Every structure is written in C-alpha cells, then in structure tokens.
C-alpha cells in the first residue's frame, strides 16, 4: 500500500538507534555463539540473520520508516577485510546502527539503516 505524503515537518517517532543496536547484538550473539564457519550453512545463516533482524526492527513500530538490513559473514583466516558504507539522506530523520560479532572461526558484521519516508 503506497503511503501518501503527510505534510508534517518531522516524524512523530524517530528511529531509535540504541534499540536497533540491541536487536542486532542479540540476534548475532544468539545465532552465532559457538558457530563454526561452514560454506553451506553460512549462506542460509546470513539470510536468516538479516530476515530476523528486519522483522524485529519492524516490530519496534517506527512508523513511516523504511528499513534496510545488511549482513556480512566471513571466515577468519588472517586475511584483511574492510567494510565501509556512506549514505545520501536527511541527517535529521535517518540513521543507522551496526555491530560486529567475532568468534575464533568467523566474523559477522550487521547494519540496520532507518530511512524516513516524508
């Protein structure tokens, strides 16, 4: 259902970064604690994690906010990795939260972006 413009000057509820951060942290720690990197399983694990995070963030009910969740899982083998992101948006209303989980066999970086629809 497409949303109509509200003509409001600002959102009624702002996206709370700390809540999103707590969700990411809980989801990653719950699923990945003691998990061994495995090429076949990690494929399904990444999609599972991102769907789980997205559903929980939606339940926080930040009205008129679109949610984008990205998850990266990599094997730890002494390689160098860099994950970076930039956004072109409205700094007053849009924000993000990110968390990196590490265990001896893998690392996992998850980010949630909340973008307001005017």
């Amino acid at each position: 259902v497409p949303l109509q413009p509200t003509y409001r000057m600002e959102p009624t509820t702002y996206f709370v970064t700390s809540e999103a951060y707590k969700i990411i942290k809980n989801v990653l720690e719950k699923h990945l604690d003691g998990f061994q990197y495995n090429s076949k399983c990690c494929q399904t694990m990444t999609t599972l994690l991102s769907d789980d995070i997205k559903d929980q963030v939606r339940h926080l009910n930040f009205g008129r906010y679109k949610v984008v969740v990205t998850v990266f899982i990599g094997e730890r083998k002494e390689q160098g990795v860099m994950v970076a992101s930039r956004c072109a948006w409205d700094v007053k209303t849009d924000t993000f939260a990110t968390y990196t989980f590490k265990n001896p066999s893998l690392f996992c970086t998850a980010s949630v972006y909340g973008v307001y629809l005017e």
Partner: protein
Amino acid sequence: MDDFQSAEETAFVIDEVTTIIKEAVEGAIGGNTYQHNKVNQWTSNVVEQCLNQLTKLGKPFKYIVTCVIMQKNGAGLHTASSCYWDNTTDGSCTIRWENKTMYCIVSVFGLAI
C-alpha cells in the same frame, strides 16, 4: 510534484546504477594489489565516487552505498540483505568485482522519497 514526472525519471534504473558502480570500482582500485594500509582510502573512494555519481542523476532518491574489500587468501565471505520498503519505487543493486589479490563487493540501495 512527483505526479508530473514520468515513470522513467523516478524509477530506480538498475543498468544505470550498475555502470556507475563499475566505473567507480575500476577507477579507485582497478589494477591495484591489496595493501592493508590503503584499503581504508580505497573503500572511501569507491563509496564516495558512487554516491557523487548517483546524486548527479538528480532523481528523488535517498541512497545507501556499502562496499566490502577483502584480501584473497582462500577465506569465504557471505553477504545478505533484507529490506522493508516499497517494491514499486525502491530498488537495490549489488556488484561483485575481483582482481588477482582482492574481492570487492558494492551494494547500492535506492529508497524513493
């Protein structure tokens, strides 16, 4: 105001975005060997170049650009994303690029205003 623009001007065009990403990656790291002290700058360059070109398109979109650069040494990497948005107006595009020493994955998410 959006009603007066044609569908083409306000849609997320994957081909255009793909070209922009590929040019940005080639320009920033094409032909380079993985160097740990340069990666920070490279990811910033790729992402900033993408964002600049995307905003020059002049479309009513907010953009999120993510870049991962990983050294090639046999390790595996998996990525996934989930989005809660409007399927008719929003879109995303992911490009995988590699050379002899590294992988580069760039994702662009375009969210209509």
